C-alpha cells in the first residue's frame, strides 16, 4: 500500500509541479499585481489599491464585456445548432464511420490555431474564395463583407471552438440506447416529440459541458478578434492583451483577467445549479 502510493506520487509529481509553477503561481502573481498601480513608463508601484477593479466598471469596459459575451453566446448557440444534427445523423452510421469522423474532427488541432485562423482570410476576404465562388455563380453581384467585422469573428470562433461542442454532444447522443428511441416511436411519438422528450433530456448535460467549453474561451480568444475582426471589434481578450502589451498597464490588465476568472467560476456555479455534474467537467 505504502509502496504503491510512493509509486503513484512519483508519477503525479510532475503534474503537480507543472500546475503549481505554470498555472497557480502566475495566477497568484496576477492577483497580486491587480492590487498594484503602474507608473507612466509601465513599471509597477507596489502600493495596495482597489482602483483597478473599480475602473472595470466604466461604461466602455462594461459595453465591451457585453459585446464579448454576445459574440461568445452567438458562437455557442451556432455550435449547438451545428452539433445536434451532426450527432443525430452520425448516430445511425456504422462504428467505423463514427470513429473516422471523430478523428477527422480532431485533425485541425494538430495545426496551430493562429495559422488556421490566417487560413480563413483566404476564404473570407473581399476577393477570397467564397466571394469569388458566389459572384461567379451570379448569386451575389458584389462581394460580401465576411470579415473585418463581427461576422468574421463569429465565423472564426465557431470554427475554432466547434470541436469542443461537437465531441461532448456526440458522446451524449451516441450513448442514448437505440431501443429508447424505438420505444418512443412505438408509443406514437413523432420525430420532434422524440427529440424533445427523449434525446434532449438525455443530452442536455453534454450541451452544458460543450457550452462552457465554447463560451469561456470565446470571451478571451483575442487573436481571432484581431485577425478576422480587423482590430475594429475589441473583445475582453483584446482588452487584456492590450493592457499588457500596448498600454503597458499590467495591474489593470491583471484586474480584468482576475475579473474574467471570477465570471468564469460564476458560470460554472450556475451550471452546477442547473443540474450538471462536476465530474463531467473533469473537476473544473
Amino acid at each position, binding site marked *: 500500500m505504502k509502496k504503491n502510493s510512493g509509486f503513484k506520487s512519483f508519477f503525479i509529481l510532475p503534474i503537480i509541479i507543472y500546475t503549481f509553477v505554470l498555472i497557480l503561481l502566475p495566477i497568484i502573481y496576477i492577483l497580486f499585481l491587480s492590487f498594484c498601480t503602474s507608473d507612466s513608463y509601465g513599471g509597477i508601484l507596489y502600493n495596495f489599491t482597489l482602483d483597478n477593479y473599480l475602473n472595470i466598471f466604466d461604461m466602455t469596459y462594461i459595453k465591451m464585456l457585453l459585446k464579448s459575451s454576445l459574440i461568445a453566446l452567438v458562437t455557442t448557440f451556432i455550435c449547438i445548432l451545428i452539433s445536434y444534427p451532426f450527432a443525430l445523423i452520425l448516430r445511425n452510421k456504422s462504428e467505423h464511420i463514427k470513429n473516422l469522423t471523430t478523428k477527422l474532427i480532431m485533425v485541425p488541432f494538430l495545426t496551430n490555431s493562429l495559422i488556421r485562423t490566417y487560413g480563413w482570410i483566404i476564404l473570407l476576404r473581399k476577393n477570397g474564395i467564397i466571394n469569388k465562388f458566389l459572384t461567379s455563380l451570379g448569386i451575389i453581384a458584389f462581394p460580401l463583407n465576411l470579415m473585418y467585422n463581427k461576422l468574421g469573428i463569429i465565423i472564426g470562433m465557431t470554427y475554432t471552438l466547434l470541436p469542443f461542442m461537437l465531441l461532448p454532444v456526440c458522446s451524449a447522443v451516441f450513448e442514448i*440506447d437505440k431501443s429508447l428511441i*424505438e420505444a418512443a416511436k412505438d*408509443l*406514437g411519438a413523432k420525430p420532434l416529440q422524440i427529440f424533445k422528450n427523449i434525446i434532449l433530456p*438525455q443530452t442536455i448535460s453534454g450541451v452544458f459541458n460543450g457550452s462552457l467549453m465554447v463560451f469561456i474561451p470565446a470571451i478571451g480568444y483575442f487573436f481571432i478578434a484581431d485577425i478576422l475582426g480587423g482590430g475594429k471589434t475589441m473583445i475582453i481578450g483584446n482588452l487584456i492583451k492590450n493592457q499588457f502589451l500596448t498600454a503597458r498597464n499590467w495591474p489593470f490588465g491583471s484586474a480584468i483577467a482576475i475579473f474574467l476568472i471570477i465570471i468564469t467560476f460564476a458560470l460554472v456555479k450556475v451550471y452546477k445549479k442547473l443540474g450538471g455534474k462536476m465530474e463531467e467537467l473533469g473537476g473544473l
Partner: protein
Amino acid sequence: MEKKVLVKLENVSKSFGSVEVIKNISLDIYEGEFLTLLGPSGCGKTTILRMISGLDDVTTGKVYIDDKDMTNVDATKREVNTIFQNLALFPKMTTKENISFGLKMKKVDKAEIDKRVDEVIKLVKLQGFEDRYPSELSGGQQQRVAIARSIIMNPKVLLLDESLCSLDLKLKKDMQIELKRLQKKLGITFIYVTHAQDEALSMSDRIAIINNGAIEQLDTPSNIYKYPKTLFVADFIGEANIINAKVLEVGDNEIKVSMLQDHVVDIKADSIFEKNQELKLVIRPENVRISKNELANGIKGSINDITYSGDSTKLLVNIPGSIDIKVCINDDNKYVYNDEVYVKFDSNYIIPLRK
C-alpha cells in the same frame, strides 16, 4: 365459432443487405390468442416481431393488422405496442411519466390521462411507486412499468420481445403467471418472442417454431411436443432420443422399421415412406420403458449415467455398439451405475420423421 384473424403475414421476406433473414413466411394470428415465436437466437423471431410493430419494414410481402394493410404504415401509427427486451424505460422519467408517455404524445386530455394511468397502475400493482425513476425500481417493478406503458395504449396486439429473460427464475415464474392473467383479463392478442421452451410451453395458446428464418411448425404446445413435424422441432422442444432407422416393409397405416442394430418395430405412419428409405425415429425419454427384468422385444443395455432432478430421474442407457438412450423415470433409487437393464419403445410413441 370462426376465430378472427387479427394479424396476418402474407409471404413476408426480409433481407439485411444480401442476407435473407426471413424467408417467405405466412402466419395468421387470431384475436385474443397468446402466440409464441420460439426459436434459437438468430433465427429471425425478433425480426418478425419488429416487422409487425413496424420498426423494421418488410422486403417483400404484406402485413395486415385487423384486416388493414399496414405494410407501409409507420410504427407510430400502428395499433400495436412492444415491450422491448431491455424494457427501454425512459431513464429520466418517473413511473408515472413513463406510463403516460404514449397518451401524452397522442395529446389526450390531461384528466383522461390521469384516470387511465391510475387504472393501469392498479392493474399492474405499482401503487406507491408512481414517482420513482426506473433506476430506483426492482427488476420486477421495471417489468410492470414496461407492461403498463404499453397496455395503457389499448393496443390491438401486444408484442413481447424476450421480455422476461433478464429476470431470475422465481420472478420469471411470477411474471409468467401475471402476464397470462393480464392477457385473459384484457383480451389483448399477445405475440411473445422467446428462446426458452419452458416459457413457450407453459404460456402459449399456440407456438410457432422458427428456424433459419422460416416457420418449422405452428401448433398448440402439446401437439408440438407430442407430434413434432421436423427433426429440428423434436430436438428443440424437450428432450428426445433421435434414432436412425430404415424402412423394411410398408403397410397401410403402418411401417416396419429396423433400428439399433436390426431391432425391428412396427410403427404408425401417416406420411408416405418407401421401402429401404432411411428415416429418423423420435422417442421422448419419458416414453421409454425400462426394466431390470427382461422385456419381450426389449433391447439390452447398461446404465451409463444417472441425473437426479427432484421430480424425476434421467438415466442414460448405453446400448452396446449403438447410441445412448435417454430415459426419464419418476422413482429415483431403483438403478445404480452399470446396472444391466432392458429398454423398450412403445410403438405408439415413436414418431417417424424423414431425414
